[in-house]
């Protein structure tokens, strides 16, 4: 795995985790029509945590993290981010979205804007930042994801890996308190996965609270302090990566791990 060398430098366990609650989900239930996608989800995320969510497709892991910034609506239970509860109140929703960054499987960059404009849009319009300052912030984060030279290009002119790094930088420009990753490497060619994971690992080291839906188990081993396994809308098991990979408790976890680790 590409991340092995990095893993020796720091393991997830050495990174600090705060004691104040960032995100709280209690008894969250959601249905798509008749289909019960999320069943009584209870999850508390503390500041500085790096959580990897895994599970078979259709297990509800994407739906769960999309509920946290209200891209999906839950029907029962309570979700709050930094004590702001997500209800139908648009004000609360917008407040939460300002503080929660999200990176998507398909990047969702805005193709009609340059990379720099993609990065400065939200700071200018949502945070009311002056354009000059927004440009500076954007260039800072482009440097951090190592593609400052692409600032004037359009997303369509970049490779998938570069686009995903731009998407990460775009979220960081809003100076979020939490970052959600929804399968950030699943749409990438194998040789591009590495560059995106490196950026994510660096981000984790900087103390960002992260919640990642991913199948990159190397990443989970390297930086996660907690791995959550979901199946059929339920959280089946959660543990430190060490325990999770070496001594899985439930049968479903064992089966899942045997399938993804022996391919």
């Amino acid at each position: 795995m590409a991340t092995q060398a990095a893993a020796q430098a720091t393991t997830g366990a050495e990174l600090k985790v705060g004691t104040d609650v960032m995100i709280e989900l209690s008894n969250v239930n959601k249905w798509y029509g008749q289909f019960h996608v999320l069943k009584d989800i209870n999850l508390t995320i503390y500041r500085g945590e790096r959580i990897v969510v895994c599970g078979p497709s259709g297990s509800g892991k994407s739906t769960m993290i999309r509920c946290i910034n209200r891209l999906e609506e839950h029907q029962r239970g309570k979700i709050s981010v930094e004590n702001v509860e997500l209800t139908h109140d648009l004000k609360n929703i917008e407040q939460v979205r300002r503080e929660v960054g999200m990176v998507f499987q398909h990047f969702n960059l805005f193709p009609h804007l340059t990379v720099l404009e993609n990065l400065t849009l939200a700071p200018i319009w949502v945070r009311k930042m002056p354009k000059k300052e927004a440009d500076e912030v954007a260039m800072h984060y482009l440097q951090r994801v190592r593609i400052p030279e692409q600032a004037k290009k359009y997303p369509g002119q970049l490779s998938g890996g570069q686009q995903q790094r731009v998407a990460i930088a775009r979220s960081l420009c809003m100076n979020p308190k939490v970052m959600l990753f929804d399968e950030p490497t699943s749409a990438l060619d194998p040789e591009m996965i590495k560059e995106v994971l490196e950026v994510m690992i660096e981000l984790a080291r900087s103390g960002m609270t992260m919640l990642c839906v991913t199948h990159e188990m190397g990443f989970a081993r390297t930086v996660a302090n907690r791995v959550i396994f979901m199946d059929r809308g339920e959280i089946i098991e959660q543990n430190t990566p060490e325990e999770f990979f070496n001594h899985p408790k439930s049968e479903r976890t064992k089966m899942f791990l045997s399938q993804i680790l022996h391919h």
Partner: protein
Amino acid sequence: MTDQTLSTPPVSDDRRPDLPPPITVAGPIAWVRANLFSSPLNIALTLLSAFLIYVIVPPVLTWGIFNATWTFPPEVVTGERAPKFSDCAPGGACWIFVGARLGQFIYGFYPEPERWRVILSFVMAMVGIYGLLGAPVRFRKASGIFFFIIFPIVSFWLLRGGLGLLPVPTEQWGGFMLTLVISIVGIVLSLPIGIVLALGRRSNLPVIHLLCVIFIEFVRGVPLITVLFMANILLPLFLPPGMQVNVLLRVLVGITAFAAAYMAEVIRGGLQAIPKGQYEGAMAMGLSYWQMMRLIILPQALTVAIPGIVNTFIGFFMDTTLVSMVGLFDFLNMVKAGYKDANWVGAEITGYAFCAVVYWVICFSMSRYSMYLERKLHTGHKKR
């Protein structure tokens, strides 16, 4: 182990030089062969096209240029008498008809000493349009304010008169000027109204959705001519007695509503082409609904919809000729009035040919501009 039949080594680091292509692949002969004579069907089509060009083009040129009458006879030039149709040679276009009537074709019955006001308005419109579409981006905001706020007020005052200018009632407006007034008002208003209707039709709020659907489907389900008659005859019946609404205003309302309904559907098509991820990307960053629409969704949707939007504009520009049915003298109707003059009986073919050329030039320009715009707004290959 070596293979004697192998003429080149299986692995070679030497790049082979690029050779020029054979004559059958590039060059004019190859082009003609590939494009005009590549198959029996293609040969037949080429010959048929050549025959059609031979049949159509020479007579049109003879009529329109070589046999046409381009200059007034000497008595007319010296002012002894007015020009008339019999001054023209038979078998050719009578362009002096256009020359003699051009003032009316352009200004209608607008009083001659006041025509500078029309010209000034026209220049303002052109400056505004250039500022919005052609000038560098940094002038765009100023151009927008000029075109959408200053220009309508000033040109309304200029054309209509009052406040120190001689009042010219709209009944005296006509010709190309009237066509432009209707077109510009219709085009400029139908786009924003169309956008609002399209967004309304996609709204989650049932009342707004229903209102937009009813409006769009009702207007689209009725011919424009009916909309115009309704605006002209039915509307006054619903208004309180004694309240008079200007004919031109009634027509403008009707025709704008008509164009907006079509525009809404074209824009809805553009909106549907935008992937869900764009909405999610915008929402996840905390943009409000209107910010998301204005900054992310509409710029892309309108770009996608450009061909349809311009198509609607062109159709609308042609449809303005229908206002003649409710008694307005637009450009076409003014030309018609011209050849009904006793002096010009027989000039209708020339008149219609002139109209066709003018309409064609304007519509073709719109079409070319839209293609230029599509190329300009295309940002790299879009994978998603």
